[in-house]
């Protein structure tokens, strides 16, 4: 079971998680931003890489659906322009109360028109072509698109939420992650929904060509190069005046603000940067597992696990984040067989000694022990090693 192919799989996935952890460690460690919606950015990255690199679906392009989608897009743009215009009505001397009312009404009508235009097109795509398919572009472009879209969404979230306290940001990002998942899961025409899309193309020769070990090792090389590049860039940024400014804002917002630093703007900058990294990491992860499954995104695996990695590794230390990601992911993966083994042992002794009749779903229940252990790790590390195993080095200047 523990052959090189299996080990390689684990390590590749761990490196993908390390990219996610790097994205989180700059948000949390550099700027103190509590992003509880990593799952959403992972899902966006995965969806984009699927849409960019999956082979072209000729059925879709030969049908009348692309034209229909174009019309829907035009309606959406027109609606957005109308709503924007309505929100600017006060410039024409309309009172603010009336402006808000008009904006809300225009928004509601535009939304209903948009939905009514989309529904038949979506139904047509689903019945004739299944789903829109991909663009057949190289995988690397998919990863870049994943990062770009995640960054764009991060920008809008940041614009709304970054002025608020971090608890609000956590709740808001948690909600947005759930919304992204709901959209991807139910938009069957775009993502095939719960039917899932596979196999996704690889950026390196697939296992069928050069064998599991060879292809996974090549994949590992790609992700490793990616991590090293991100790490070097982040380290340079950390030691540059930019990084010093970020830490100054994190440690004392008021003081930094009074020194003329634009606190909210800088925060937005780093939030978007972190989201881009999460999008890329998510894209790399989804490409590797070869299946895009919107239901497979769960906060436990794609948000909280990353949090444990960053807290345990040491927030604010990039090396700590990478180390935490590798360690936690390996422990997480290995804990599955370990928990099952422990529970089967317990089941056996329980039956032999006490005549205990275990429930039929013991295996799925046993796996819940991993959830418990992740939770316990968070609380214990926060209490006994709040700065992580590799804390951020603090320079003292005498």
């Amino acid at each position, binding site marked *: 079971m523990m052959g090189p192919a299996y080990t390689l799989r684990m390590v590749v996935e761990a490196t993908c998680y390390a990219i996610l952890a790097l994205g989180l460690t700059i948000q949390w460690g550099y700027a103190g931003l509590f992003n509880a919606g990593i799952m959403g950015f992972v899902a966006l990255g995965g969806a984009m890489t699927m849409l960019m690199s999956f082979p072209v679906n000729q059925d879709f392009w030969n049908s009348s659906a692309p034209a229909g989608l174009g019309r829907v897009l035009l309606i959406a743009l027109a609606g957005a322009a109308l709503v924007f215009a309505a929100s600017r009505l006060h410039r024409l001397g309309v009172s603010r109360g009336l402006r808000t009312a008009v904006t809300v009404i225009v928004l509601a009508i535009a939304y209903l028109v948009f939905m009514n235009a989309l529904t038949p097109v979506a139904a047509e795509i689903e019945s004739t072509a299944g789903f829109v398919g991909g663009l057949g572009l190289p995988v690397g472009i998919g990863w870049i698109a994943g990062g770009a879209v995640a960054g764009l969404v991060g920008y809008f979230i940041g614009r709304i939420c970054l002025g608020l306290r971090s608890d609000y940001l956590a709740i808001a990002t948690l*909600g947005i992650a759930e919304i992204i998942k709901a959209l991807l899961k139910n938009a069957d025409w775009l993502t095939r929904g719960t039917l899932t899309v596979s196999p996704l193309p690889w950026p390196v020769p697939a296992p069928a060509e050069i064998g599991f070990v060879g292809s996974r090792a090549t994949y590992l090389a790609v992700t490793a190069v990616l991590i090293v590049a991100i790490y070097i860039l982040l380290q340079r940024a950390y030691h540059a005046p930019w990084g010093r400014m970020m830490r100054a804002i994190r440690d004392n917002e008021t003081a930094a603000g009074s020194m003329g630093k634009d606190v909210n703007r800088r925060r937005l900058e780093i939030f978007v940067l972190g989201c881009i990294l999460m999008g890329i990491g998510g894209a790399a992860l989804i490409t590797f597992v070869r299946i895009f499954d919107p239901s497979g995104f769960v906060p436990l695996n794609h948000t909280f696990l990353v949090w444990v990695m960053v807290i345990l590794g040491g927030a604010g230390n990039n090396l700590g984040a990478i180390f935490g990601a590798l360690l936690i992911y390996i422990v997480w993966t290995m804990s599955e067989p370990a928990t099952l083994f422990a529970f089967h042992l317990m089941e056996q002794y329980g039956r032999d000694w006490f005549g205990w009749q275990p429930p039929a779903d013991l295996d799925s229940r046993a796996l*819940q022990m991993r959830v418990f252990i992740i*939770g*316990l790790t968070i609380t214990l590390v*926060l*209490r006994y090693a709040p700065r992580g195993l590799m804390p951020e080095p603090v320079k003292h200047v005498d």
Partner: protein
Amino acid sequence: MNELVFFINKVVIAGSVIGSIYALGAIGVTLIFGILRFAHFAHGDMMTVGAGLSLVVAVLLSEAGVSTPLPIGFVAMPIAMVLTALLAIGLDRSFYKPLRDAGVRPVVLVMASVGIMLMMQGLVRLLAGSSTRSFFFAERKDIFRIDLPFLEARRSLVITEPQVLLIAFTVVAVVALHFFLTRTRHGKAMRAMSDNADLARITGINTEQVVWMTWIIGGGLAAAGGTLLSLDVTFKPDLSFNIILPIFAAAIVGGIGRPYGAIAGGFLVGFTETLAIFNWSILLRPFDALFPAWLEVPANLAFVPTEYKITIPFFILVAVLVWRPTGLFKGRVL
């Protein structure tokens, strides 16, 4: 008037039911935020645990041969409320208080509550499996059908016993909470500490006692909310994650730290949810003849398809935050 009765069934009753659940959860969240200054992520799981404890007590009572006119789960609920309150205090002693004493930033407390959320989730699913369970294992669920012949409606008003109990319990709990906060010494101390913790400490208020009261009220109401929700539908171990977002939305929309705001926010979110997924074309059907020929009423005029229900609380949250950053009841400025 069948349509009107349908509207009452689908919106007024369903909205009150889900609004009550959200309000019961949001009161706890908002009090914990007001007193302890952090978003308690584990609150949804506290509701699940409370419901699970009710179920266990109900099974034990039923096996002991107790039979009651009210559903046995409802009779078991007070015991579960006490147990959940104790659990909340225990969690505070063992996890939150040490962090508080170490003087960590509030955000670390939020992280810790995420950790506790995962621990509770894991334990509940380990012990209860992932299947759903009904509270009505020994009896039948009473369903009241009220005919409204004077409205010329053939459809009857449908409300179940758990729904009646839930709405009644929420009213009683809200009134009791009001008198507690305005008339008793503990309640006043609580409000004082929520307004200004330092000032409250100077005036000699026992802050640890206030923290205990907060967990007792929050835990008790969480257990009640979880139990009543499970009585209405079924007990699901993964009930929590779907419910914590609307509850936070309710607490924030009402104004964080404001119990009355939490109640209002709970009902606002509950009703918005049901109104958004309600198919408005049913209400327009009687007026079909009035519409001009070119304007056909579509068969489905719901704003949001049911599968996107989870997105609604969040949109309310963002809208209110943009429009009124401290919530409807002018909560704490963050």
